[in-house]
């Protein structure tokens, strides 16, 4: 029997509240009502479970309790009683709905990530409704003041209601176009967790949602690709920072501290994707990370394989950032001069990692003055303190070089 403390209930809230909120939105068609009722059910659980222990199915208990709370609320108001008359029927009809697997969370994520909503609103709404993060936590994650985030969420929820943004999985023909923003939101949420204070929560939620999506849409190769990409990136998380919090580059990381369980899972998914042979940008990025994860050391990395994968990625997503990363791989295969030639043709002057990559190549070519200048440029543009520290350290190390 696990000890029922606030931490355990907090964890159950993280894992189960999204499903409960989604189910209540389906039943009652009202986001605020669903959120409030689930919140109340957890407050009740906090009191009850301490004394009585966990129910056999905590998630089911929360959903049922929240549903009853919502019905109580509706009975108390006359408009609510009208609504209550309508909810019983759609609830029954839902069970007979044909088509692919219908999961309430899947419906909700397509609503939250609807292209009619602003991108910032999509991410915030997904983390709030499906990830169980509080408004304060979402605000902190995106470095926005809480009232501003609350306003953004209210506005998004109002648009869903006023514009009748549907609560369902899109039709097969619309699916590719509608899946793209959903995957982008999960990827964005994960990345927001790599340089923000509430980072662990965000990365954990993004992985949890990607895993849930992958279970619900097993035929979509890119969903699997995204999950593998997140798992493989996460496997290196603890190796990415040194004791004093500064960044450790891939080449210098202690590979024995990489998470083998995550790597195993990521590799298995990448292998399945290769067999499926429907490549897409997330799958290719996952494959690149899989090659890194398989290498015993930085020099032992199969760089020509990585370069081939970047060639494929660049063909599908021809952006300057992909071209830059491909050039870095090229530097490992053909040497720094070839890489520098490619980099110098790219228009990425405002991107700190571009200057950092140039600095590294220039130093390898012995052009220390140019390298110093590039490191200084990178440090000035760096997005986080950890990156700035790393870059100024490199710059200092360069000063002694001639």
């Amino acid at each position, binding site marked *: 029997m696990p000890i029922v403390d606030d931490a355990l209930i907090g964890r159950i809230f993280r894992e189960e509240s999204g499903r409960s909120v989604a189910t209540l939105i389906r039943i009652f068609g009202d986001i605020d009502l669903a959120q409030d009722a689930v919140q109340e059910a957890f407050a009740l659980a906090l009191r009850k479970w301490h004394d009585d222990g966990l129910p056999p199915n905590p998630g089911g208990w929360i959903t049922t309790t929240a549903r009853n709370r919502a019905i109580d609320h509706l009975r108390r108001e006359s408009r609510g009683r009208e609504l209550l008359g309508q909810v019983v029927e759609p609830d029954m009809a839902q069970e007979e709905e044909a088509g692919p697997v219908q999961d309430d969370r899947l419906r909700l994520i397509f609503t939250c990530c*609807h292209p*009619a909503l602003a991108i910032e609103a999509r991410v915030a709404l997904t983390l709030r409704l499906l990830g169980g993060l509080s408004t304060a936590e979402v605000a902190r994650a995106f470095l926005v003041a809480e009232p501003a985030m609350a306003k953004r969420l209210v506005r998004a929820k109002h648009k869903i209601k*006023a*514009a*009748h*943004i*549907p609560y369902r999985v*899109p039709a097969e023909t*619309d699916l590719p176009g509608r899946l793209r923003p959903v995957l982008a939101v999960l990827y964005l949420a994960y990345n927001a967790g790599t340089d923000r204070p509430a980072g662990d929560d965000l990365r954990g939620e993004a992985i949890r949602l990607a895993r849930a999506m992958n279970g619900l849409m097993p035929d979509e190769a890119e969903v699997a690709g995204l999950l593998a990409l997140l798992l493989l990136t996460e496997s290196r998380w603890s190796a990415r920072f040194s004791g004093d919090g500064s960044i450790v580059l891939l080449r210098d990381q202690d590979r024995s501290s990489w998470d083998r369980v995550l790597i195993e899972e990521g590799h298995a998914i990448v292998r399945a994707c290769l067999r499926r042979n429907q490549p897409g940008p997330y799958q290719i990025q996952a494959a690149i990370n899989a090659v890194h994860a398989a290498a015993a050391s930085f020099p032992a990395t199969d760089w020509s394989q990585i370069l081939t994968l970047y060639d494929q990625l660049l063909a599908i997503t021809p952006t300057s950032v992909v071209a830059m990363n491909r050039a870095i791989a090229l530097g490992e295969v053909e040497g720094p001069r070839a890489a520098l030639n490619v980099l110098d043709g790219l228009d990425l002057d405002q991107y700190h990692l571009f200057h950092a990559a140039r600095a590294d190549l220039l130093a390898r070519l012995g052009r220390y003055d140019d390298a110093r200048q590039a490191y200084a440029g990178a440090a000035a543009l760096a997005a986080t303190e950890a990156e700035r520290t790393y870059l100024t350290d490199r710059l200092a190390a360069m000063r002694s070089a001639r």
Partner: protein
Amino acid sequence: MPRYLLSTHSATGGATREPMTEEQMQKAWAPIQALEADMKSAGAWVFSARLEDPDTATVVRMSGDEIVTMDGPFVEAKEHLAGFYIIETADLDEALGWASKVTRLISSPIEVWPFADTAGG
């Protein structure tokens, strides 16, 4: 059922195009008319119209207790309302579906705006 305004805007005083011949006009309108027929048979069409240029508009307003009528338009803007559909669909996705078809035909963007009041819909 929710109702939506699908509106299209034109640049005010923009490039004046060569006037179309009767035949060209027919050709340009045929697919738009066909799409309208589709909207009608799907039960989505409520109303549609194309507007004259904004310099033909007249503004009526109160000045104290008096009604004043003056040459329009209401606001001088870079763009003006050029035409619109009012449609009735199950949800935003269906409305966006019709908007996509319209925008493909007229090759200019469409704004999809929900009605505030769905009463009578």
